[in-house]
C-alpha cells in the first residue's frame, strides 16, 4: 500500500508544473486559443522535447514506457493549466489505438512521428446517434478488392482540425449496436472523400464533424483485427476516461484554492467574505469533493496499471461517476462564490467551469458510468 510517486514520476510532475507555471499563464492561453489553430505549435514542439508525447508508449516504440499513473500525472497538470494543445486527441486517443492494436509497420509509421511531434492524430469513434455507446457504429466499411470503402458521419472528433491522420471505427459486419463487427481503420487526413467541418468547442478545444464518402483504404489500413475493434476502443476510452478525469481533478484543485483565496480578498459588509460561515462550509464541501475525486483517480490509475479487466473497468467508471458529481459541484460553486466576477470571460474560473462541465459528458457522463459500475 503506497501512494507516493517514484523519482521518475516526481520529475515528470515537476517538469509539467514548471511549464504550467512559467509558460502557460491565463493570458498566454487566451492568445494561443485566439490563433487560427487554437493551440500553439511552439508549445507542441516543447512537449516533444520534454518527452511528454512519449509518455504512454513502449520503449521499443521510442516511448518511455509510462503507464496509467504517468498519464494521470501529465493530465492532472494539464488540467490545472487548462491546456488546450491536443494531447488527449493525439497521444492518448489516436496514439492509444495504435499502441494497443498497431502492427510493427503501423507503429513505425505513426508512433515515432507522434513522439517527435511531427504528426497529430484523432480518434473518430462517436457518431450523431451513438451517444456514449462505443458499439453503436453506423459508419460502414465495405470490402473492395484488397481494401475497404468507408462511408459515414463521425461526430465531435476532438483534435479533428489539426489531425494528420484519423483512427476511424467502422462496421464491417453485424447489426447496428453489435460489439462484434467493428473495425478500426487508419485514414489519412487528406484522403479523397474525407471532409471535415471544423469548429471550436465551448471549453476552448477544437473539434470536427468528419464525413466519409466512399473513402478508399488499403488492407494495411486495418488497425488490429477485422471485426475486433470494440475491445481496443473500450480500453483506449477507459484510459482516456482516466485522463480527462485527472484533468478535471487538476481543474478542481485550482477552482477550490482560487475560491478560497478570493474569499480572503473580497470584502463585503466590512469583512472578507471568507469570514461568513455559510461560505466557509461551502468551500469545505468543495475541498472534500476534490479530495474524494482525487482518491478515486489514484484507485483508477493503480487498477489500470495492475492489468486491464473487470476490476480496472469498474474503478475507471467509479472515478468518472465521482468526477461528474464533484466536478459539477466544484465548478458551479466556484462561479457562485466569485459572484459577478465568476461570470466573466476575463477570469479563469468560468473557463474551468466550462471544461469541468464538458468533461462530465466526455466518454460517458456520471449516469452512464454509474450504470456500468453497477453492472460490473
Amino acid at each position, binding site marked *: 500500500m503506497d501512494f507516493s510517486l517514484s523519482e521518475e514520476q516526481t520529475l515528470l510532475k515537476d517538469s509539467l508544473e514548471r511549464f504550467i507555471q512559467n509558460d502557460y499563464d491565463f493570458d498566454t492561453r487566451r492568445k494561443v486559443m485566439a490563433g487560427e489553430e487554437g493551440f500553439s505549435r511552439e508549445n507542441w514542439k516543447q512537449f516533444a522535447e520534454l518527452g511528454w508525447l512519449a509518455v504512454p508508449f513502449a520503449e521499443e516504440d521510442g516511448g518511455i514506457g509510462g503507464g496509467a499513473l504517468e498519464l494521470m500525472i501529465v493530465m492532472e497538470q494539464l488540467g490545472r493549466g487548462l491546456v488546450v494543445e491536443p494531447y488527449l486527441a493525439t497521444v492518448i486517443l489516436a496514439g492509444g489505438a495504435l499502441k494497443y492494436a498497431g502492427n510493427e509497420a503501423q507503429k513505425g509509421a505513426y508512433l515515432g512521428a507522434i513522439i517527435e511531434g511531427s504528426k497529430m492524430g484523432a480518434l473518430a469513434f462517436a457518431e450523431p446517434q451513438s451517444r456514449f455507446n462505443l458499439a453503436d457504429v453506423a459508419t460502414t466499411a465495405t470490402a473492395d478488392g484488397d481494401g475497404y470503402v468507408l462511408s459515414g458521419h463521425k461526430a465531435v472528433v476532438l483534435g479533428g482540425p489539426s489531425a494528420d491522420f484519423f483512427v476511424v471505427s467502422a462496421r464491417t459486419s453485424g447489426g447496428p449496436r453489435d460489439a462484434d463487427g467493428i473495425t478500426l481503420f487508419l485514414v489519412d487526413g487528406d484522403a479523397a472523400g474525407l471532409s471535415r467541418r471544423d469548429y471550436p468547442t465551448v471549453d476552448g478545444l477544437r473539434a470536427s464533424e468528419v464525413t466519409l464518402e466512399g473513402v478508399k483504404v488499403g488492407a494495411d489500413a486495418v488497425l488490429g483485427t477485422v471485426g475486433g475493434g470494440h475491445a481496443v476502443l473500450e480500453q483506449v476510452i477507459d484510459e482516456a476516461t482516466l485522463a480527462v478525469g485527472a484533468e478535471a481533478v487538476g481543474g478542481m484543485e485550482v477552482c477550490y484554492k482560487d475560491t478560497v483565496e478570493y474569499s480572503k480578498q473580497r470584502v463585503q459588509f466590512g469583512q472578507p467574505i471568507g469570514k461568513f460561515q455559510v461560505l466557509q462550509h461551502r468551500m469545505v464541501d468543495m475541498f472534500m469533493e476534490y479530495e474524494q475525486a482525487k*482518491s478515486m483517480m489514484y484507485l483508477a490509475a493503480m487498477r489500470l496499471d495492475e492489468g486491464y479487466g473487470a476490476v480496472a473497468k469498474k474503478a475507471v467508471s467509479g472515478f468518472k461517476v465521482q468526477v461528474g458529481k464533484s466536478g459539477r459541484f466544484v465548478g458551479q460553486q466556484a462561479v457562485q462564490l466569485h459572484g459577478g466576477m465568476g461570470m466573466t470571460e476575463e477570469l479563469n474560473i468560468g473557463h474551468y467551469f466550462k471544461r469541468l462541465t464538458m468533461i462530465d459528458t466526455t466518454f460517458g457522463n456520471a449516469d452512464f458510468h454509474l450504470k456500468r459500475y453497477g453492472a460490473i
Partner: protein
Amino acid sequence: MDLALTDADLAFQAEVREFIDTYWPEDVRRARATSSRFEESRGHSPEVRRWIDALNERGWAVPNWPQAWGGTDWNPTQKYIWDKETAKAECPQLSAFGARMLAPVLYTWGTDAQKNEFLPKIREERMIWCQGYSEPGAGSDLAGLATRAVREGDEYVVNGTKLWTSGAHVADWMFCLVRTESGGKKQEGISFVLIDMKTPGITVNPVYILGGIHSVNEVELKDVRVPVENLVGEENKGWTYAKGLLTHERTGIAGVARSEVQLARLKRIAQDTGMDGGSLWDDAAFRTRVTELEVELEALSVTELRVLAQVAQGGAPGPESSILKIRGTEIGQAIAMMTIEAFGYYGMPYPEQTLIDNEGPIGNPYVMPTMKGMLYGRASSIFGGSNEIQKNIISKAVLGL
C-alpha cells in the same frame, strides 16, 4: 504507487481470518447481527467475553497502543487488514471510551501509577469507562463547561451536571473535564480527572433516545470527592489533553469497513425483497441510489488508505483525515436509511423485546437491529464534534479561513 498486498500481508490476512473463525464463528455472528437488543445495553455475553479473552491471549486486543502496553508491531497495512476483517465478521470491539479514547491520553500524559492501574484493565475490558464531557450548557461549545472542581487538601470536590454521557449506567469509571479555574480564556482552567462511578454524590439518570434506546445519561455530581492523584497531567491543561485525544484514532472513525458490511447487507435485502413480480434490486431508481452510495464509499475507503499511508511514512494525518468523520457518518446514515426503505411496510413493526424473545421477529430478522442502528446512527453526525463543527475546523485548519 500501488495497492497490492505482499505475500506476507496475505499470510497475515489468512492468520487473522482463521483467528476470527475460531473465536467469533459464523453462527455467533449471525445471532448477534440479528439480535434486536441494542448493542450498548447487551452487556457481555459469554461469546463476547470469550472473544475479548482470546484477543488478549493472542496480544491483539489493542493493536494501536505502544507495544510496552500490549500494542502490536503491525505495520499500517496489517492494521488495515485487521480492521477490515474484524469489521467484515462484525466482531465486537473493546469499549471505545477506554481503549480508543482514554488510553492514548494515559499512556501519553498519565503517571506511572495511573498507567499501571488502568491500562491493563482497559485492555482486558475489566474496567468500563464513560466520558464526562458534554453538559446542558456545553455541547458544540465544549470549552464552555461549568462543572467545577475545588481543591480541598488532597481532594477535589466536584459539582455539576454532565449530559449525553454514553454508557454511564454501565461504566465503572468516568474520565471527566472539570473547571478548576475561571476568569481567563475559557479553554484554560479546564482539568482532566478520573472519577470512580461508585463515589458518593454521583447520580446517573437515564435519557431515553429515539426508539426507547437507553444509551446516554445525565450524570449529576454533588460534592463528589476525587483524590488529586486522579488528575491526569497538569491542572488547567485538560483542554490540551482532550484535544490530543480527538486527534488520536482519526482513522477508523470513517467506519468504512462497517459501512461496506451494511451496504452488502442492503443489497442482499433488496434482492430478497419482492417487487412487481421481481425484486427491489431490479428497480432502476433504487439500484441507482445504492450504487451512488457504493461509489462514495469506495472513494472514502481510498481516502482513508491515503491517510494510513501518510501515517506509515511517519507523517501526521493530512487534511484528508478531516473528511473521514463527515463523509463516513453521512454515508453510514444514508445506507441505514435506504435499508429501512428497502423493508417497505415491514420497517414499521417495533415490538417489545419480550414479544420478540417469545414469538420471534416480525418480518425480516434484520429489521429491528437496522431500525435501532438507524435511529441511534443519527447521533453519529452530532457526537464527537458535530459535522458542522468539523467543517469549522477544516475551514480554519486546512483552508486557512
